[in-house]
């Protein structure tokens, strides 16, 4: 049985490798498109401007120093502007009508609370329409949080040592715990660049996985037309062997295709997609789902030519809705909901999330577990329906 399976797989692989267009579709096109997109749209010098709303209900030293820092930063000059807003409500409204891309809100009493060692939280308001502003605002707040943590710790230590409350602040500052000056990261915009290059890379990988996996199932229809499928089925081998041999090769080639696109994206743009095992898990689950969906298509059409057409349409619709072509947030709300029905939507969300979070191995595997489970479920449902259809159509 294994020999028969290997024979089918070897022939399929050979047919695909001999066919030049197959290689082009599996490797060259997705890599080229992903590179072109990320260079053209997400390039080295993002022509993007972000206006970040600034709500200062605290009126203390923390907000003041953040304002100073942003104004003085060479990297942010010209691309990030702070706009003062009177309150959270106004910020929300400005965010909704596109006046600002994100907002930072300092609650009342923030500086005092930190000074007394009780910590504090700065809120960030973001909008999916301007991810870049969100990245900047979050970078600023991350710095503040780190400072606040350090400050809180120091204050508590000093209090524990028995220093009277009204001398604590002065003592802490005098002894080197830096003042409330949140030194910004070198280039908070680099996060935005990562987003774009990962977005286009993963989008192309997700789209082309459909074509590459689909080609093998389409091949099953070609073999039915040729009569070779019946010849195999009349031989002494289990009915699933021709199907399994081809499916395995299609799946493996699609996996190679997405991984090469991933590697190329990392090499070309220098962007990391996040923790490799987590990225791989998402890509693997996506290829499974894409294979199952193209298999379902194959089981419902009559000829290989029909399969080509329908797989093309289905792949592009899924890619469009799932944010593989244009970012999901630029689609109308109804369509954004439809993204949840496509593997591309889950893959795109998981991968951009991973790249943005910079989480370590433990955190990132947990972060993608949900999307991976959904992708697996899509693969199971589509695959199950496909198997039923294929049995009826004597493909399996």
């Amino acid at each position, binding site marked *: 049985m294994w020999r028969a399976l290997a024979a089918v797989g070897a022939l399929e692989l050979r047919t695909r490798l001999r066919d030049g267009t197959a290689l082009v579709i599996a490797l060259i096109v997705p890599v080229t498109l992903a590179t072109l997109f990320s260079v053209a749209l997400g390039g080295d010098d993002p022509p993007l401007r972000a206006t970040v709303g600034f709500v200062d209900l605290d009126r203390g030293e923390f907000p003041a120093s953040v304002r100073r820092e942003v104004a003085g930063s060479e990297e942010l000059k010209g691309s990030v502007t702070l706009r003062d807003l009177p309150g959270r409500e106004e910020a929300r409204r400005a965010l909704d009508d596109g006046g600002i891309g994100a907002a930072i809100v300092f609650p009342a009493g923030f500086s005092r609370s930190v000074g007394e060692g009780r910590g504090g939280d700065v809120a960030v308001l973001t909008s999916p329409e301007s991810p870049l502003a969100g990245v900047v605002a979050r970078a600023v707040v991350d710095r503040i949080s780190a400072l606040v943590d350090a400050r809180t710790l120091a204050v508590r230590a000093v209090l524990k040592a028995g220093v009277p409350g009204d001398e604590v602040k002065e003592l802490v500052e005098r002894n080197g715990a830096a003042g409330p000056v949140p030194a910004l990261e070198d280039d908070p915009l680099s996060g935005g660049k990562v987003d774009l290059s990962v977005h286009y890379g993963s989008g192309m990988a997700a789209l082309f996985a459909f074509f590459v996996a689909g080609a093998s199932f389409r091949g099953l229809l070609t073999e039915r037309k040729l009569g070779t499928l019946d010849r195999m089925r009349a*031989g002494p081998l289990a009915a699933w062997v021709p199907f399994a041999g081809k499916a395995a090769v299609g799946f493996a080639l699609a996996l190679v295709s997405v991984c090469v696109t991933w590697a190329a994206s990392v090499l070309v743009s220098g962007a990391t997609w996040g923790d490799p095992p987590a990225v791989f898990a998402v890509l693997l689950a996506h290829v499974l789902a894409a294979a199952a969906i193209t298999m379902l298509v194959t089981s419902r059409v009559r000829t290989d030519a029909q399969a080509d057409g329908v797989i093309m349409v289905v792949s592009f619709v899924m890619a469009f809705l799932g944010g593989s072509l244009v970012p999901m947030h630029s689609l109308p709300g109804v369509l954004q909901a439809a993204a949840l029905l496509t593997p591309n939507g889950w893959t795109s969300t998981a991968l951009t999330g991973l790249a943005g979070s910079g989480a370590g191995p433990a955190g990132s595997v947990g972060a993608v577990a949900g999307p991976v489970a959904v992708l697996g479920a899509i693969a199971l449902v589509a695959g199950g329906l496909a198997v039923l259809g294929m049995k009826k159509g004597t493909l399996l």
Partner: protein
Amino acid sequence: MTASDPMTTPSTPPVPSTPPVPESAPSPPALSCRGLSKRYGDVHAVRDVGFDIAPGEAYGLLGPNGAGKTTTISMLVGLIRPGGGHVRVCGVDLAADPMRAKARIGYVPQEIALYPELTGRENLRFFGRLFGLPRRALAGRIDEVLDLVGLTGRADSRLKTYSGGMKRRINIGTALLHRPDVLILDEPTVGVDPQSRKAILDGVERLVGEGMSLLYTSHYMEEVERVCDRVAIIDHGRIIAEGTRRELIALVGGADKVELSLDGDLETALAKLRAVEGVIEAAMTGAASIRLLTEGGRYLLPALITAVDGCAAVTATQVIEPDLEATFLHLTGSTLRD
């Protein structure tokens, strides 16, 4: 009831619980089927088809287009599940143990079912491996098969460069790789020139001569008459007659076949000929020919020529002794090729 009735005579020796089996049990039929049926919607493609093919026997399935030959074969080789009935290959039930049953069948599809982009040898190698031939034995077996079908010289050309006859031959050769006990050929000579056809028939006869069982379907009477020991005539999904060539021809009785070539209004001529005393069947076989099944054909000729007088002129006549085709005409009322 009499005293000698075995059922009531106590002195009768007890009936053995199993039928007496001689030491050398006769081997089971190479291929046997019973009650095979298949429907496609309202179309009864195959109805209650059953026959046995003894080891080493060549069996023909003769029928016109759409008679149900391919559908029957598809059930015999396990490609479609029968609506009813069962199949045994060398005593192995196809439904119960498909792998073992299929291993003994060599199936030659009606169409060339091979990869045009691969060479002849590569095609053979692929199906050989698929059918479980060990790698080491395979190369030798491929050479044998190539030799058998006379393609050794072209083994390494791509299949798409083969002529129609060569494709037909390698189509058959592929089914021989795993040395099957039964060879099933579905119209193996469609669309080949007489020379290739002869080569194919010679090869098939040689295989049968070496002891292989054969199921041969065709709508060419001559082929089936030449190759097969026994023939079943199938029409509209049903076997309407079965037997040796002699038995089948006997069914027609003393009928003769008369071929008439005519000029004129053939439709009217056909109707008039049917009305002639002694004519059993009449069918149009071409734009200017009619075939008749008659009693005492030779003596009927003057009456036939007179009958069509006025609507058509007879330009040639031929009287043929009964053969399978006459039988077919007799049984089905239609010609094989229409």
